[in-house]
C-alpha cells in the first residue's frame, strides 16, 4: 500500500457532476448544450439563450467547447484575435480571451479549424478544466456549446457540466441522435435530469409530444440499464422553438435573434426557455 494520496479539494464527497469546477466555493452553474446531430441550432440556441439569461440579470459566459470545429464567432459576427487556443498555448491570458458579445454576455471562443483539438490529449483536457475552474466563480451561468456527435471531446465537455441540455428537431435523424446521446449520457455518466429543447417545430405542442415519445423509449430501453439507484431518469422539457423565417434571416445576417427581432415567436420562445432553465 502506498502512502495515502492527498485528497483533491476539487472533488466533493458526493460529487455527481460538474466536478471540474470545484465544490464549496460559489460559482456559476455549468450547462452543456449538446444534440447528437449537427445543424439543429446548437450554437444559435447557446448564443440566444445566453442573451436571454443576461437580460434577466445573470452574468453569462458561453464557452465554445466545440474545440475542433467551432463557429460561435461566426454566429455572433465576431472576429476574435484571441481564442482558447491562445490561452492553451500561453500566448495570452485567460482574461484577454474573454470577449464581450452583443447581447450582454461574455464568450470564450475556440477559433475554427484547430484540427489538433479534435482529439482529446491529456493536455487539452487539463487546460480546459483549468479554464473552466478559473472562470466559474466569476459568472452565474456558463453554457458549454459542444460539438456535434457523441465523440470523446463532446462526452468530455459534457462531463464537466452540472447539467445537460439536449437540443433536437422533429426530424427523425435528429430525434434518433438525441436519443442516442441521452442513452450514452445516462449509462456512461449516470445523468438523471436531462433537459430537452425542441427546435424548428411547425405545430404548437409538437415539442412536448416529442419529449413524451423520447421518454417512452427511455423508460423502455434505457431505464432498465441504469435502474436500482437514485433518482428516476426524466427528460425535463424546457420548451419548443417554432420554425420562423426571421430566424433564418438573422442567422444569415449573423445577428442575435433576441437583439434583432426580440418580438418574434422564436425569440419569445427562447426567453421562456431561459426562464425555465433559470428556475
Amino acid at each position, binding site marked *: *500500500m502506498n*502512502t*495515502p*494520496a492527498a*485528497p*483533491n479539494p476539487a*472533488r*466533493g*464527497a*458526493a*460529487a*455527481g*457532476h460538474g*466536478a*471540474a469546477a470545484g465544490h464549496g466555493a460559489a460559482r456559476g452553474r455549468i450547462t452543456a448544450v449538446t444534440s447528437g446531430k449537427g445543424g439543429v441550432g446548437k450554437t444559435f440556441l447557446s448564443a440566444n439563450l445566453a442573451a436571454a439569461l443576461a437580460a434577466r440579470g445573470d452574468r453569462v459566459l458561453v464557452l465554445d467547447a466545440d474545440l475542433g470545429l467551432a463557429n460561435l464567432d461566426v454566429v455572433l459576427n465576431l472576429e476574435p484575435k484571441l481564442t482558447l487556443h491562445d490561452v492553451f498555448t500561453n500566448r495570452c491570458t485567460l482574461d484577454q480571451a474573454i470577449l464581450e458579445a452583443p447581447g450582454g454576455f461574455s464568450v470564450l471562443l475556440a477559433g475554427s479549424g484547430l484540427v489538433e483539438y479534435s482529439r*482529446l490529449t*491529456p493536455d487539452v*483536457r*487539463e487546460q480546459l*478544466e483549468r479554464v473552466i475552474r478559473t472562470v466559474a466563480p466569476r459568472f452565474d451561468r456558463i453554457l458549454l456549446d459542444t460539438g456535434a456527435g*457523441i465523440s*470523446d471531446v463532446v*462526452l*468530455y465537455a459534457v*462531463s*464537466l457540466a452540472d447539467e445537460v441540455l439536449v437540443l433536437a428537431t422533429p426530424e*427523425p435523424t435528429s*430525434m*434518433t441522435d438525441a*436519443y*442516442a*446521446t441521452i*442513452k*450514452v449520457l445516462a*449509462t*456512461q*455518466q*449516470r445523468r438523471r435530469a436531462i433537459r430537452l429543447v425542441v427546435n424548428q417545430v411547425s*405545430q404548437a*405542442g*409538437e415539442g412536448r*409530444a*416529442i419529449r*413524451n*415519445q*423520447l421518454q*417512452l*423509449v427511455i423508460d*423502455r*430501453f434505457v431505464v432498465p440499464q*441504469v435502474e*436500482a*439507484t*437514485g433518482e428516476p431518469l426524466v427528460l425535463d422539457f424546457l420548451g419548443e422553438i417554432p420554425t420562423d423565417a426571421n430566424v433564418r434571416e438573422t442567422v444569415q445576417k449573423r445577428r442575435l435573434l433576441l437583439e434583432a427581432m426580440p418580438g418574434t415567436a422564436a425569440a419569445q420562445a427562447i426567453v421562456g426557455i431561459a426562464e425555465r432553465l433559470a428556475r
Partner: protein
Amino acid sequence: MRAKTDSPTAGSGSSLRLGTALLLLQQAGHVWPAGVQAGSVAWLQSAIDGLCELSSRDALTGLANRRQFELTLASEIDRVARTGEPALVLMVDIDHFKAINDAHGHPAGDLVLKAIAQVLGDCIRPMDTVARFGGEEFAVILPNCPPLFGQAVAERIRLKIQERSVSIGGGMEVCVTVSLGGAHAPQWVRSSPTLWVERADQQLYRAKSEGRNRACLEQPPSSLVSPEEKGLLFGTSRFQDLT
C-alpha cells in the same frame, strides 16, 4: 528497539499524550527503526507512519479499509481523467455469508473473511488495491486494466475462491462462492468516486439476481439505436395528442 509506553516524551515533554497510540502500535506489531531515540523527531515520525498505516487497514483481514479505498479511488479517478487509461473497480460479495455465521458462528465467519482476503490478495498485481468495503463485501481497484483483462481477472477471482476450502476448526471445512460486479472508469470523462462505485454495485446486484457465483461487468455504453428502439420512437403516432 522497544519504545517505552509509560511516559513518552516528544519535544515539549509531558504535553503529548501518547499512551493509547503506543499501545495500538504495539498491538499491531509496529517495528521501530533501529537506533532511534524515543522522543526524537525520527521516533515520532515512525509513530505517525505506524498510526497512518493502522488507520488505513482493516483490523480483521489486513486489507485496505474503506477509508483507504476511497482515497485510492479518488486519486485513480484523477489519473484516469488525465491519462485516459482504462481502470476497473470490482465489487466482490460473498454469497450467502449469513448462512455461515448462522450455522457455524461468527468466529467461523471471520476465518472465511480472512481466507477470501488472502485469495483476493493472491489474484492481483502489486499496483492493484484490495479493500474490505464493509461486512462481507470487498472492493478491488485495478489501474490500467483493459476490458478483456478485467473480465479475465474477475473470472479468476471467482474460480480461485470457489476452489478454496476454508478450515473453520474442529476438522470442518466450508466452501463459499462470491458474486462480482465491475465497472470501468469512463475513459476521457471526468467522473466521481460515488458514481464509479454505484455503477460497479449495480453490476454486483445483477450478478446476485442472475443466480450468484458469477462476474458481471458493465458493458461499454453503446450509442447504437436498435430497430426496436427506432420502432418505438417513430412507430406510434406521436401527434395523437395534438388533434
